[in-house]
């Protein structure tokens, strides 16, 4: 069966704001809620963000729901991703034909749409049973962006005002929609996101013919300004309505277009700095459509690459790293074998070993194995006494990584060398639980290592030792 979105009928409804009726023309209504939920969940699952964080709000006592700043995950699906929000599409009818998207116009998939009533009932009943933390509503585009946005706005408004739902709501802002509707919607929800879709404008041109970069950046800028203004207003008038209080996020698809990691991280950095985004999400490209413009992925979605990008993303947001420190034009891709932080540390061995009892907080953050929480506790703890390795362990420092880079009171944990090659080898040897030993043969230290026949692994991951020799037989 192939449905077409009927665009000719009922244009009159658009004129009346807030009283948008559910489009009867989309041929929904025959399906049960169970069927609709299956179809519209299936259509929404490639969306990444499912976080319910960023805003702390107590219940008013009159409705249902509150929000926690840290967010709460309520379940985990078989792919290990968290289920925090009821992530569904309003409808999977779409007038666009983006090549990577399962819901594109030219795909022959079952189409349906929820009624606002159904969305509200599902959300309230799931929330009441502690299944979910709120609603994440996105949608295919019916008729035009403004019309779709208005439908979403009507459903959310019903959920907030009639059902008095006070939990978390995340909606997608649709590029091209009337800014006025986006503003109205922003006052009702906690988080809004505009999908960047692909890291560069060129990729977008190739794969999403109906979208362009400036069209996407426009609502992003609008939401950013809205958030800033709202914060100022709330500072003056405490009860002023809050606009998107949990901030704005976006997502991009990784691996559908030929960008390198450096480009992607730079884009993310620019988004954080220039658009004040809360989060950038990366989604490893899953080939759901047969299309000659899309790359074949014999090894499945690029999950490791996605993982490295998330690691780098956290380094940007919480650890004070810049994109240019992690990667460069000459080294545009992440190390396959090591996480970006270890990789950075290995390239800056002149800074190590770092004295834990004296190093400034910012530098502690750069030590592999020390996270934000541990660094804070170290700084607090060392005011009251000299820290030893035992204390670090209790604080939560991952010593098996950190031990190569730190010393306590001038001593390192074991006798280790500050040598790139040596540390790399030991770090990769994760299964090896024994304390690192200098390589000893007949009691004498050696610095060479076995020539590997699988040099492709080595070459991709490790930087060759100084002099460019893989096997330096020097004693």
């Amino acid at each position, binding site marked *: 069966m192939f449905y077409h979105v009927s665009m000719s009928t009922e244009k009159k409804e658009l004129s009346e704001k807030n009283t948008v009726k559910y489009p009867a023309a989309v041929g929904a209504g025959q399906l049960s809620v169970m069927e609709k*939920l299956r179809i519209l*969940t299936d259509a929404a*699952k490639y969306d990444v963000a499912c976080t319910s964080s960023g805003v702390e709000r107590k219940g008013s006592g009159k409705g249902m729901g509150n929000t926690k700043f840290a967010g709460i995950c309520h379940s985990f699906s078989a792919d290990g991703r968290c289920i925090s929000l009821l992530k569904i599409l309003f409808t999977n009818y779409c007038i666009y034909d983006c090549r990577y998207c399962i819901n594109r116009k030219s795909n022959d998939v079952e189409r349906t749409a929820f009624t606002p009533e159904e969305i509200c009932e599902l959300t309230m009943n799931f929330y009441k049973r502690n299944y979910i933390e709120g609603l994440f509503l996105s949608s295919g585009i019916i008729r035009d962006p403004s019309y779709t946005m208005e439908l979403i706005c009507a459903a959310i408004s019903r959920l907030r005002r009639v059902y008095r739902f006070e939990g978390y709501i995340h909606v997608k802002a649709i590029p091209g929609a009337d800014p006025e509707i986006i503003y109205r919607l922003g006052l009702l929800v906690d988080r809004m996101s505009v999908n960047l879709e692909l890291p560069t404008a060129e990729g977008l041109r190739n794969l999403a013919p109906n979208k362009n970069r400036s069209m996407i950046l426009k609502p992003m800028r609008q939401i950013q300004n809205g958030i800033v203004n709202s914060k100022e207003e709330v500072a003056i008038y405490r009860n002023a309505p809050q606009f998107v209080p949990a901030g704005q996020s976006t997502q991009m698809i990784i691996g559908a277009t030929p960008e390198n990691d450096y480009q992607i991280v730079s884009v993310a950095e620019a988004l954080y700095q220039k658009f004040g985004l809360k989060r950038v999400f990366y989604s490893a490209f899953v080939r759901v459509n047969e299309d000659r413009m899309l790359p074949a992925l014999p090894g499945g979605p690029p999950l490791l690459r996605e993982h490295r990008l998330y690691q780098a993303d956290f380094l940007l947001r919480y650890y004070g790293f810049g994109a240019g420190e992690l990667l460069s034009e000459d080294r545009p891709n992440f190390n396959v074998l090591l996480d970006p932080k270890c990789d950075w540390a290995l390239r800056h061995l002149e800074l190590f070993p770092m004295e834990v009892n004296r190093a400034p907080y910012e530098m502690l953050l750069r030590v592999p194995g020390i996270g934000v929480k541990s660094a804070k506790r170290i700084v607090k703890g060392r005011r009251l006494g000299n820290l030893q390795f035992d*204390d670090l362990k209790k604080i939560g420092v991952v010593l098996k990584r950190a031990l190569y880079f730190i010393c306590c009171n001038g001593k390192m944990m074991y006798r280790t060398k500050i040598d790139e090659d040596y540390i790399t080898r030991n770090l990769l040897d994760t299964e090896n639980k024994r304390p690192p030993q200098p390589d000893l043969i007949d009691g004498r230290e050696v610095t060479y290592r076995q020539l590997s026949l699988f040099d492709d692994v080595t070459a991709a991951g490790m930087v060759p030792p100084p002099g460019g020799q893989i096997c330096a037989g020097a004693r």
Partner: protein
Amino acid sequence: MEIVVFVCEESIEGILTGVYDAWVEALSSGLGHAHCRLAVNNGNDYNLELFCSYRDTPADTVKAGKVIRTLRKRLGEEVYECLCYAMASREPDRAEAVYRTIVAGLSMEQRYRVLDKVTDPHVARCFELKRNVGGEIHRELEFLRFKELENGVLLAKIHPKNDVLMYLGPHFSDRLPSENFLIYDTNRRKALFHEREKDWYMMDALELDEEMAGRISTEEEYYQDLFRMFCRTIAIESRENRALQRQFLPLYFRDVMPEFAKK
């Protein structure tokens, strides 16, 4: 020097009573805190030590109240909250760790900073217990599931390892103010009640009426089915990773979660 071991009851009140009594003993005997120790009576026989005398200390609201007041005033709310979490732990050494932390805290110059004193093994232990209990509380907030009974009451059964039930009260009563709900700890046979638009309260030593608990509302099964289907559908097949799922959501919690019910 003979050591006096104060054997407290398991509750927070019991432990704090122990702290009070130990303090009195430490001061009145003139031998100081090294002379006292705290243990928790968890119903099992504990190993008795030589050169120790054991004293049972029945929980006393007045004594515990005095200790609580001192803690909040002199160590601050943050430390007090941490100690409360630690006392909800199931570890037998929790009373001793809390006692020693209080001793360390009150003897410090910057008392509210006692938790930063990571070099003190008891403080570190307290912190560890708190982290463990805090983690379990958070997992209950995540994975606890209500089911709607015939009479409209929402019922959740939990079996936490630590005694976290009372920390769930504020969260859920704020979240569901106009619902009648009941959270039952099957391990400790305790229940937390919330009546529509009223404060929550707890009751000990309570048997759950299984027959009543089995009579679910007509909609209940429908929503369980819907959610089960949602969870199954939301997973991306080409990313399947059961080990990762297990890491975040241990099997231990799954028996009360409808999305993992065998159907």
